[in-house]
């Protein structure tokens, strides 16, 4: 499958959403790492098992604001290039995620096809 070998990090404080996203993304051929808390994403660096190719990040995490994590990742040279798609059940969050440098936004609930299309858009097949 063409997506084989692409790593996606999914951060959401709801374990059911994480499960569903893992199921969805693995069906599409991606390798998925999930995280319930923002800490892992916040402290991403190259040495720690490598960087993901793309991050799906919930806006409101329990105890943390996903937007602050996004801003931090987009301000570091090491992680700036990683596309971040933010997701939220508040459709009004669309504007605020633009401000923190997120590459895309999807309101929950979303269509799987729409999600996969966005991922593909930000993650063109790697040249061999």
């Amino acid at each position, binding site marked *: 499958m063409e997506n084989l070998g692409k790593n996606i990090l999914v951060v959401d404080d709801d374990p059911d*959403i994480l499960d569903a996203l893992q199921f*969805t993304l693995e069906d599409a051929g991606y390798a998925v790492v999930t995280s319930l808390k923002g800490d892992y994403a916040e402290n991403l660096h190259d040495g720690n098992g490598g960087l993901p190719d793309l991050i799906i990040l919930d806006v409101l995490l329990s105890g943390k604001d996903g937007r602050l994590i996004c801003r931090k990742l987009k301000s570091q040279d090491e992680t700036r290039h990683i596309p971040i798609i933010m997701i939220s059940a508040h459709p009004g969050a669309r504007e605020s995620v633009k401000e923190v440098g997120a590459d895309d936004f999807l309101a929950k609930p979303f269509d799987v096809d729409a999600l996969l299309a966005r991922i593909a858009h930000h993650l063109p097949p790697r040249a061999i």
Partner: protein
Amino acid sequence: MATHVRKIGQQQNRLNVLKDSERHFRSLLEQSREAMVLLDLNGVVLYASPSTQRLWGYPSRELIGRVAFEGIHPDDQENAAKLLAALVAEPGKSLSITFRFQHRDGSWRWMEGTTTNLLDDAGVGAIVGNYQDITRRKVLEQNLQFLAHASSLLSSSLDFATIWDHLVNLAVPFIADWCAVDILNEQGVFDIAAIAHKDPAKVALVSEYRQAHPIDVNDKFGLPVIIRTKQKEYIPLITDELLVTIAKSEGDLEVVRALGMTSALSVPLIVQDKGIGAITFVTSESRKRLGETDVAMAEELAHRASLALENATLYREAQQAISMRDDFIAVASHELKTPVTSLKMYAQVLQKQLARAGEESQSRSLAKMDAQLDKLTRLINDLLNVSRLQQGRLEFQEEAFDLNEVAQEAIEHIRPTSEKHHIQLEGQIERPVWGDRDRIGQVFTNLLANAIKFSPGADTVIVRLIAEPERAVVSVRDFGIGIEEEHQSSIFNQFYRVTDPDERTFPGLGIGLYISREIIRRHGGSIQVASEKGQGAEFRFTVPYTRTHTALDEGLF
């Protein structure tokens, strides 16, 4: 001789007739409720009828020789002087006038009557004034005016602090020289909610005094008793002995003496049958004694203020309830969306997997499940939107967009919900339109969902895009049950659902059309329906090409 005697007798008779006549007129003047004065051309009193004693407190001999203007209220003197000049200029002229005249006791009496120039009349040779006392009527008029003004001011705000502020400023100086509102707070302490005094320096004095001497709720007089009994406390004349009794110390006595109080009155403020505070009226500098009329006025004012307060309380409670409901809806809709998000992903991925495995029929079932999840999502969004609309918090993101695309997307979106209906799209809008793309899409979806829902026996829905010179018009036409004329004006109201017992029931929250109308209105457009029962319905709405000054800008609704 006989003739002479007869002549004398006749003269005597004539004299008696004259004397009778003079007695008659004198008695008339003395009994009269009116004051009659004769003035010379400079306004000097030549004659004053005995009734002036009763009306103004002066016996006529004390008025004669005085200039009439001296007794007239400073504010009315200019008017009176003009009147006299106009009269002197034209013999025989008569003019009516209203003025205030100072009674010997210092109070002002309202007088009304006519003044006539009879200087050229040989029998009179003076300017004649006839005046009656209209003070009672005047006071009544002013009181009614005052109360009407008070009512409108009190009802102009729902904020307590503003209500009290209005109240005390109304009462000073109309009723008293100073007025204060005290409210018993939740800690059982009396707070001065508002205070007004003719002399601002005294406001500080009263406030300082109160800070140093908080009112003891167990006091046997004053505010605590008024609140407990819901009865007024009225002291027509404050004597020094009284001050000595109430003062708690020498220093105290000094302060209360410095306030120079004449008369005092406290009336309770009652809300929902509970004494919550009091309005206190005090006279000092004016030396005015609060009388029966003032007491009646003060009680009426307190009554109206209590009503205003009750309204404000009810309004505040209602607002809190609405705000709690909206917060709840916001949280609930967010929570509901989370499981729907997971469900959708599973349904869609399973559908793909089954399709890949060639399980067509099961894949279709999952597609139906997915369509139902979309319906559920719309219901959740509608709930949230309706509560946001009411609070004016629905966000709009304006841009130029392609209306044809939005129509196409909405049709694609709604298509899976009905296998039977064929949705046709006719016409095209060449120019971009202006507004919130997603919200306009929501209007399409709402109208299409209704068209399908209310046409179970038909198989066609037609969407038409019409390019008018000034705006784009969208028509959504179905061939369903139609809407009776009596319902057509109500269908855009929130929570409106057709409840005709003969008709089959149609599920829904009854908010789709309400939200649609609000969205279109905020774009400066309109939405209408044309329908006949049994003949289907056509909904039309407009979308502007360019940004218009609309309620969108003002954040109304």
